[in-house]
């Protein structure tokens, strides 16, 4: 039996990887994927804790998160397409019309 801490640490590592990807990647789609990675880290945490606490709720929450992530992907990709149409580029450094 694998102890719970292994799962939690793995999830934490995934979450931090997501945060790092969000901060350092320059491609919009990759940034979006980093956010999805963060959400999946949360899902892993939920499932592990739910198994550990013998509470089924946690597993149901994962479904909610997945559905919301799917809706977010639909909206997000549409937004990315409109940005791409204006700029012909997916580099976030080019998205700089408004600055201080």
């Amino acid at each position, binding site marked *: 039996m694998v102890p719970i801490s292994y799962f939690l640490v793995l999830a934490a590592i995934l979450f931090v990887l997501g945060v790092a990807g969000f901060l350092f990647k320059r491609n919009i789609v990759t940034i979006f994927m980093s956010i999805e990675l963060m959400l999946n880290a949360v899902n892993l945490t939920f499932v592990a*804790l739910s198994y550990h606490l013998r509470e089924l709720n946690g597993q149901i929450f994962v479904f909610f998160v997945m559905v919301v992530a799917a809706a977010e992907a639909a*909206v997000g990709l549409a937004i990315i397409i409109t*940005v791409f149409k204006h700029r012909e580029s997916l580099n976030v450094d080019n998205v700089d019309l408004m600055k201080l």
Partner: protein
Amino acid sequence: MQPSDAIAILPEIILTAAGILVMLLGAFFEKSERIAAGATYAGLIAAIIAVAVQFNHPVAAFGGVFLADSFGCFFRLLFLLIALLVVLSSSTYLHREGLSAAEYYALLLFGTVGMGVMASANELILVFIGLEISSLASYVLVGFRRDVPTSSEASLKYFLLGSFATAFFLYGVALMFGSTGSTRLTQINEAFNTALRGQSAGTPVHPAAANLAVSTQFPASLVGVAIALMFVGLAFKVSAAPFQIWTPDVYQGAPTPVTAFLSTAPKAAAFAAFLRIFMVGLGAYSGRWSWLLWIVAVLSMFLGNLGALLQANIKRMLAYSAIAHAGYVLVAFTTHSADGVAAVLYYLVAYAFMNIGAFLVVTHLGGRGERYLEIEDYAGLGFRFPFLAGMFSIFLLSLIGVPLTAGFLGKFYVFRAAIHGDLVWLTVLGVLNSGIAAYYYLRVLVSMYMSAPAREVPCEPLRAPERLALAISVVGTLYLGLFPQNVMDLATQAAQWLQQAR
């Protein structure tokens, strides 16, 4: 689902049905603007009635997951009122910019549903669902002028940073679930109280004290991390510094009526969730988070006000001022007393009226394609359009916090609560900031009344819906400044309800 559950979420059902209807009308009718607007008004008014009826009959629906109490109803009424004002002020704008009215109204309605859910949720997952419903609608609304590069850019920034913050919030929820075995706010509170009582009595918490007691297998720091993560997510949504980076860009790029909406409704909804989670769920740990609020409040006030000083674009200036106003609200929140919560609610209502009014004038003067948004364009406005300039002056004076306006009493209640809560330094810094803020609002006033026009700014006459929205905003601003008692009573009632729930 029992009948009483359906009654508790009746406003949300009405709004969803109205939203779907509006979308269908948009799909099937060529000239759908008027019909869609009519259906939207009908839905909003029906929902307002449904909430008003519930006000004095608190219901815990769906096994206590959804609380239609006076706190939730206060906020839902506020959201519906804001949505109504925004719909009234957008019809001319949509026509002028050639945007599809039906989709716009439907998104506003769906967004309002999400906010209503957030304000009434007694369950962290439901807060998350509500947050996402309202956020997804607002991401699209921000990018509604698809042909304009700044609009889609604002939408992208809002979407990426918004989802980033949501992921933080969600991770906090997961860890909170891990440390207490529940995501129900009242149960989390119970678990903490049990754990704290166990500590103070000198007996360690029994490891097998059901799922609810704080599990001793997890270090107490896990609770701290969970609180911090949820705090980051929510602070982002209320655009508090240092999580405010997105605010100026998004508010500048969004269509102006949408900016008016964003700066009031989703922010109020985030505050509602913030208050409920921290006051009810984490009330026992107030020592751990009130200093965080202190820092964030001070930072928001300073960054917002100092940033606004440098702006030449009026929308961007109002965006920075929105950050500062979030700071004032956080001052009241820092007290975590019933007084403070009532002040938060009062301030949010006052801010809604004056800010929507100000943005309405900005929308109208912006002209086709939002060309006239520089502060220079407001030069000489007082002579050319005395009525509009007069209205704008009232809103700006209220944003400064001049007596007889809503803004003054809002600040008064906030700082009074802070003094009662022994937050003397925070009050001093807050009052100092109101002084800084006066400068950039007065700059606009001075340029309106004391300088010659820099360039010719055309201005069409106001249409009927805009007039009505303007009248409601002005009357609301002055009413709240002169007769605060009725609204303050409701706010106090809602705040006490929140205190009881602990």
